[in-house]
């Protein structure tokens, strides 16, 4: 078994209700866990007019590989006339979206309904 720097800890919880797709990600998103995230999210992003909301409030770490997955998902959703939102970003992750200019094209500022769990 390969043991890298990562603990491979990620869980992805998907709730689908017609066009609304709610995804809750928990754990770490890095080069080792990003492929799993990609496999889970890409097929969902291809639904015509999908409204995807990804909640990252339980993500403790994300590097640029994770950012790449969300960029890919965002492009796919947009190509299929859908909407894409990310909620629950920590200050550290918010900074990542701001530095990269992604905050200007991806909606990251919607408040979580019912406050923070």
């Amino acid at each position, binding site marked *: 078994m390969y043991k890298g720097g990562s603990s491979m800890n990620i869980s992805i919880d998907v709730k689908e209700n017609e066009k609304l797709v709610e995804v809750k990600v928990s754990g770490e998103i890095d080069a080792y866990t990003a492929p799993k995230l990609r496999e889970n999210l890409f097929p969902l992003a291809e639904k015509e007019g999908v409204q995807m909301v990804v909640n990252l409030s339980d993500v403790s770490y994300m*590097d640029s590989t994770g950012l790449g997955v969300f960029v890919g998902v965002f492009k796919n959703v947009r190509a299929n006339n859908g909407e894409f939102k990310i909620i629950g970003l920590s200050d550290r992750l918010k900074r990542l979206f701001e530095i990269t200019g992604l905050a200007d094209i991806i909606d990251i500022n919607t408040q979580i309904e019912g406050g923070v769990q």
Partner: protein
Amino acid sequence: MDFREIIADKYRDILVNYLKDQSEQSLYSSQKFSRKSIEHMISPEEIISIHKQLIVDLFPDMQPEIAHSFDILLEVMVGYGFALREHQNLKHIQQELRSEMEIAANVQKTLLGTSIPNIDCLDIGAISVPAKHMNGDYHHFVQDENNSVSIAIADVIGKGLPAALCMSMIKYAMDSLPENRMNPKDVLENLNRVVEQNVDLTMFITMFYGIYDTEKHVFSYASAGHEPCLFYNAESAEFTELPAKGLLLGIEKKTKYRQYERTVDVGDMIILMSDGVTECRTEDGFIERESLLELIKKFIHLDAQDIVTSVYKELEKMQDLQLRDDFTLIIFKRKV
């Protein structure tokens, strides 16, 4: 005597000795024996077959059932022997891949090679270290006859081979830009078009491009989602982030970039880095920008090259010598 007989002989000595005295010494020699036999590709089932034969020879009056029981053990071990051979094959393949990667890393080094310009008024230091064989960070200096130095620093998402291949594309795109001096914003807009057409959906590149005018001492720059650069004001002895906003390369075809300018006084420094520097993780969490500043301050009296090298060494120590990401740090210091 053939090899198998030598092995059987050796095994016999060890076994006989142990049956006599049950000493630690005999146990130890059996450990040594197993290392040797693995080295010579002797399978576990072969050892059991030797063991069975010896036991039958040594104790001719033994109950036959005990001898038969070794047949079962032998059959079970066949699977383990198979796994061992597979493991040895993989080890061999891994070695081949490793040497191929080393060759590729050397090719890349030559391809992306850049040398620090020698300019009277500037002290420049640069360090770039890949986390693995191949570097996904890129930096390139150009000195032109109009007394300006330009610096490009880029970071491809991810690391390893895919990042390195992408970096080569950037290198060629940069080389194919018109010769005459271009504004940083134009450089980024040009590269963005190339990258947008040529990368996978989840791939992107951050880039910072700056030109230092060595007559006016003005640094003009633009950023495509790159880790903010730092500015050290010698007079107030304070660090600030160089403001810069701009989208990553490769996201939207028609992205426009904004250009910024900063006047540089004697002693001031411009500090450029890749996100490998701020994403350094230690046991206790991330290295905050604050601690990076502390480190730079600690070495601020040194030459630019010694500052970047010393900061790298300290960060490496803090992370137990294990880089998680490619690491690039560049400093421009105005001398006169």
